[in-house]
């Protein structure tokens, strides 16, 4: 089996199912954790409304546009492009139909091209912002530079594969690069901070539930969680 066939066949199925199962696992574990923790805290009055509102604000940070508006605009664009293009690109719809048998609506090639370029520009802008803005730079770890690049790579290689005239590599090798980089993203999604694609609501929930603990509970948390005094056999 040649490399591209392997990357498109077994490797694709393996990485794709790893992503799906891995993300599902995170959702299940987090839900399980929320339920367990809630059962063991004395304060059950979780403000679901506020959690929902904060999460929605987190997705579309319109109300916070006054600070660093360009960065936030780029961020929205970046996320929209990353979600829409891989799912609704006509070529990918073919894969959706052939694999799981889902018929999705598709976007026109012109629109897909424009959105891809905008996403790439937004991604590069965000990366630049992280490098040149002092506060961002000091808050960033190595993964914060690596992950955006890893996510941009399939987009860039896919764009170049669609436009062979601009591509520095032959079509097949560009396609191989595209497939492999996409599969790298599949693996990274459940194993790195990219897991926020499914866990962003839990972020707010866990913060809220942590506030349920009595201030200064400290060492008694274990006792609270277990329901028996410290040191006792369970």
């Amino acid at each position: 089996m040649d490399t591209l066939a392997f990357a498109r066949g077994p490797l694709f199925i393996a990485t794709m199912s790893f992503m799906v199962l891995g993300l599902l696992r995170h959702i299940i574990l987090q839900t399980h954790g929320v339920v367990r923790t809630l059962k063991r805290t004395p304060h059950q009055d979780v403000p679901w409304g506020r959690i929902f509102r904060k999460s929605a604000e987190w997705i579309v940070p319109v109300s916070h546009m006054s600070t660093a508006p360009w960065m936030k605009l780029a961020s929205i664009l970046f996320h929209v492009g990353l979600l829409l293009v891989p799912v609704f690109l006509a070529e990918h719809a073919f894969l959706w139909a052939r694999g799981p048998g889902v018929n999705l609506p598709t976007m026109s090639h012109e629109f897909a091209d424009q959105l891809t370029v905008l996403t790439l520009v937004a991604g590069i802008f965000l990366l630049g912002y992280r490098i040149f803005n002092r506060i961002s730079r000091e808050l960033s770890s190595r993964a914060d530079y690596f992950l955006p690049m890893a996510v941009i790579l399939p987009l860039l290689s896919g764009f170049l594969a669609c436009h062979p005239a601009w591509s520095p590599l032959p079509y097949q090798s560009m396609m191989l690069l595209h497939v492999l980089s996409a599969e790298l993203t599949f693996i990274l999604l459940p194993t790195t901070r990219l897991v926020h694609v499914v866990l962003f609501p839990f972020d707010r929930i866990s913060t809220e539930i942590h506030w349920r603990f009595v201030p200064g509970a400290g060492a008694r948390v274990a006792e609270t969680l277990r329901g028996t005094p410290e040191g006792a056999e369970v």
Partner: protein
Amino acid sequence: MALKRLKDLFFVLALFGLVAGITRMFAGLGATTALSDEIPWGIWKVLNMVGGVALATGGFVLAFAVHVLHVKSLKPILRPALMVAFLGYGASCTALLLDIGLPHRFWHPIVFWNPHSFLFEVFWCVLLYFTVCAIEVSPMPLEKSRFSGIHRIVKKISGPVVILGITLSTLHHSSLGSLFLVSTGRIHELWYTTWLPVHFILSAAGAGMMAVVLLTLVTAKLYHRIPPTQVLTRVASASAIVLTLYLGTKVLDLMNRGAKSILFNGQWEVQLFWVEIVIATVIPISITAVPRLRRSNAGLATAASFAVAGALLNRLDVGILAYFRSGETTYIPTLAEIAVTVGIPSAAGLVYFYFVEHFDVFDFQRGPAASRGPITAFQPQTRVWGGTLLNDLERMSLIAVIVIPVALGLFLTSARASTDEVPRTRVAAPTGTDGARDVLRMDGDHDGNYVLFPHQAHRDRWGGEDSCTLCHHMDKPNDHQTACRNCHRYMNQPTSIFDHELHQKRLTVKLGYAGSLATNLTCTECHVEGEAKRGETAEDCVTCHRENMRMSGDGSVRHDLAPAYTDALHANCVGCHNKQAREAGKPHLGRCDTCHECTPGIDTVTRKDSVVRPPAGMETSRSIIHDTLHTIHALHTRKAGGSPGQDGPADLRPARDTAMVRRGIAFGAEANVRGSRGEHPDFRKALAPTIKTIIFSI
């Protein structure tokens, strides 16, 4: 810690087995196993079913000793023995369910009785004995539950149930041996004997007891308990006696049959036989014969391991190694087969651990429950959302998330490659463009894209009434110029047009046979007595149908498989057209657009292969359709010079063939599917330099 690691390992193996089993259910046996017409069963049947059942014999032997012979000292290990029986039979049934051709018909022997079959008896015994095992095991969970009423009922019926279990077990173990008696001349003579039933039940009883000994020792080791060595020594001694008896019958039988002359002739089967005898009997018997060794746990464990391995090797020899040597093919199990074979016992192991940890399987096992360990105090860095609370769940789910994708990648793609769905489209009849049907509008898949075929014009050009047979090469019985679609029934799959059952029935009536299995008497009408009954070796259809069925019969053409409609029509038309293009100087006759209207606008292309048609909602995506058309074009031009249909089913080899046809694959259609993905055959060459470039530049 060792226990935890072992459980993780079992979980991993069980998951691999699960994915392989599910793949088998959806993709079929042919796509997931190395089984074929020559190799009708493999390691699932022999290791999991026949071997698993043999090792599970300990349950009934010890039940017999405790309940019938009243050997009370063996009672401490009766429960583990019953667990072995229950799990062994459960594993066997699972493997069998995967192994039979149509798993959803597993219940058929209950309703449709075939008392002539050994397997019919085996089925009933295994089914009933598995039920008996379940009843015998049920007190373990029941005594810990609230259902004390059910527990009392089970206790009451336990006596008759035990007797029933012993009877059933004796019956079917010997029957599994009898099953192989049918294969005269296939099994190597060192194993093939009329004593096979006796050999089977003796070796099963011996190895089954050793399996209980081994399991008890391993469990005690894993759970840090003291094993009841004295009891185990007694069981091992009893087992050694049975094994000696087994060895004795084997020797006697060999002497009796005069087979001792071949015991030293150096054939590999003979060497295998010796290895098996040494592992299965000589080593365990000798170890047990030494008092110091049989009273030590290490000695017992060694003897038991050898006996168990020897019994499995024996079943493997009788069922595969000494059996398929005449099969002319080599059987190498696929990864999926190995995964299931290993996965089922692993899953059984996990169930066993669950029983041991939650119910009173072992008397000597009772003790303080294991502590869950302290939970660390809350610190800002503590991952409250992760490991601290959810150790087991987190780890197990992580294992599943890693193992299942790998297994899917391994099994699903290889299965998909051979079962890739080609839509099974029934060919529709051509319609006439006018009442006289002079010009036919051929649209086999009814998608509105058609070919206009000037039927009358062809007829006139090639000689009127006499020319029909040029294209209509074969008729149905008592028919005249049968239409193409009567045999070439599907657009992209070949059709089996030989109704075997119908022929059997008609011949039975015609020849006046009577009786319960009268149809079996008709075999020799077409097949040669004593030879393997296959399509290729059977009498040619022409022999009987010369009168009522016109066919091009010189014996070289097979009449039981009609190629796909597209393949057949291309072969029929293109061959002639190409010839005319060359000889009559009409080059346009060899071009696609002679029949298929092909104008630059994409929407007006008349022939789109149904395999590569883009899904709904994508008709506007021009690039894909362009690609597809280019691919089709490339495929056709590559085949130029020969007709596209010629490398169709005609050169399928028989063994793989039937399996492939069953799965609905025509080579032509498969090529189209490949084409639609851009996987050109010469693609590897094209890509090689670029891959090198990538690697070097990295």
